[in-house]
């Protein structure tokens, strides 16, 4: 019963933050909420938009869950997302935009695999630097984010630029290479299904396999892990690589499902938005489906809000940040009350 009350506090708290934020930015609250609602879940098109917005966040969020569970603060989801895209774009160059293109099915899977590999490689680099040179992952992943973004800019106006060499974008992928859509009129694509499958897979990995158990143990109780002769370095690198692979997959799904081409605006902060998703999902893969949906709904609804305010998606950042602070604050406050010494 107490647990139920605790859980029901989340939506109430979120609603309060939502109302307060709308009021603070002088958006009429009732109309604002109405617009958010109709934009997020009003009709089946809204549902589809919400699903599409939740997908990259769910995947990057899962990436954060794996790394953070392993006690390694990967905040480089953004860079891993982008490098995934660059790898995918490179494969597309050779698989699609040549005189002998591969069969569409092969090209799609090839691009997707390249994206996963790109994200994993970028994350592995940070993990390796941490183990070998003691470079804090928090700092190295942030720096790698900026480097990745500039690298993307270079690729889009250099080696990967579209054929006419007019705009800093890559060639748009033909429809048959894109991920299949669930319905002709809607945005929702097969990537949504892939993301949910990834959540189930990561749940199995973390809670039903030895490798996942090692990752959790190293993160939760390093001394016990050491006592049991578990190689912490190996487990952390593995967590980092899985984490980066998920962020790369997010990039691939965004590339193959939505944008179809790369440009400097390829990642709409998806890597960063994974962090609140993971935290508010309690670092649990299945709960992340829920938290990603909530924030996806907010983002989809915020597009509808543009009628009243030009703030758009930036409002959602504020709501996310306040939600995280509230969650962390309440949790920390509870933890510090009855400090029972063992």
């Amino acid at each position, binding site marked *: 019963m107490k647990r139920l009350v605790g859980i029901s506090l989340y939506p109430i708290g979120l609603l309060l933050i939502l109302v307060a934020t709308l009021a603070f930015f002088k958006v009429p609250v009732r109309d604002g909420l109405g617009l958010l609602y109709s934009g997020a879940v009003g009709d089946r098109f809204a549902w589809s938009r919400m699903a599409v917005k939740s997908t990259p966040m769910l995947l990057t969020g899962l990436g954060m869950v794996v790394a953070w569970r392993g006690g390694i603060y990967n*905040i480089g989801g953004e860079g891993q997302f982008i490098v995934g895209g660059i790898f995918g774009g490179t494969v597309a160059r050779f698989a699609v935009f040549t005189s002998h293109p591969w069969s569409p099915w092969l090209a799609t899977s090839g691009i997707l695999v390249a994206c996963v590999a790109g994200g994993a490689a970028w994350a592995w680099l940070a993990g390796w630097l941490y183990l070998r040179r003691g470079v804090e992952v928090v700092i190295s992943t942030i720096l790698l984010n900026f480097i990745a973004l*500039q690298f993307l800019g270079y690729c889009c106006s250099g080696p990967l630029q579209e054929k006419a060499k007019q705009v800093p974008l890559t060639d748009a992928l033909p429809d048959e290479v894109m991920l299949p859509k669930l319905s002709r009129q809607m945005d929702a694509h097969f990537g949504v299904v892939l993301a949910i499958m990834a959540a189930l897979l990561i749940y199995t990995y973390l809670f039903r396999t030895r490798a996942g158990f090692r990752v959790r143990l190293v993160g939760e109780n390093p001394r016990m892990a050491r006592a049991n002769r578990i190689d912490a370095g190996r487990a952390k690198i593995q967590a980092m690589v899985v984490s980066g692979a998920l962020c790369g997959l997010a990039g691939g799904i965004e590339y193959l499902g939505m944008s179809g081409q790369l440009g400097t605006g390829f990642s709409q902060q998806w890597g960063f938005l994974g962090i609140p998703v993971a935290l508010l999902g309690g670092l649990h893969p299945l709960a992340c489906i829920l938290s990603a949906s909530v924030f996806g709904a907010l983002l989809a609804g915020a597009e509808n809000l543009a009628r009243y305010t030009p703030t758009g998606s930036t409002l959602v950042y504020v709501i996310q940040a306040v939600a995280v*602070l509230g969650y*962390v604050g309440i949790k920390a406050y509870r933890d510090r009350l009855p400090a029972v010494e063992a």
Partner: protein
Amino acid sequence: MEFISLLQYSAPVALAAIGEIVVQQSGVIDIGLEGSMLVGSYFGMLTCLATHNPWLGLGAAILAALLLTLLFGVFTVLLAADQVVVGTAVNLFAMGLTSALFRSKFGGTMQLISIPRLGAYHGIDLIMVGMLVSVPAVWYLMRRTAWGLAVRSCGEYPKSAEAAGFSVYKLRLQALAIGGLFAGLSGAYLSLVIAGSFAENMTAGRGFVAIAMVTFGRWKPHFAFLAALLVGFADSLQYRFQTYGWHVPFQLMIAMPYIVALAVLVLVGKGTAAPGALAQPYRMDK
């Protein structure tokens, strides 16, 4: 003149890094530094625009950055929450808040905001002088005063500070206040001195570079200052190469400070200079 423009390029990172040194010596890593700088930039610009007085703008910038840094402190010091989590949230909050306010106030019009800048004498302004003075001042504060010793003990082994009768919470919050002051100066420097305007997310990762420079500078103000000069130099290269007519991809030049910072961290590693209790939450016995 050449050297003065280099100082200008380096000042935002240098200022933020000097403040962050004090914070990190107390055992706290202020991941929210970027956010504090950003609110400083925005509210400095806003106040300056409203009052036409850059000095009031400077005051507002410091106040805004100070408040956000202390908010970070309430969560990480008093509530002993995780510093990376709170810092990330603070950055997201600052980015969302300043962008949303900026868009709702100036959005759509796309007008170029121009504000009176802080006065300067031959390119030397007061914040720059303050920065140069603060390098030995912070060194003296941390190495030659009782307060500095107490703060460093909080960062090295907080239990010992508490056993000696100090309040770890109080000392860490005081260190954060100094960090917030410098973050405000750094943010104000961007909007009030360099740009004379504001742009969304105008700090562009300089806060993170400053954190990297603290590690690079081995937690010593003079080394961190030199490290910031190096970043400023890399930053200025993109314009220099253009004047020479060298065809280097400009993206490489923009990425240069980050690559330099990373390369340096790879070379020096973590070492033993880091405060022993850095980033570890501490709960006082009560």
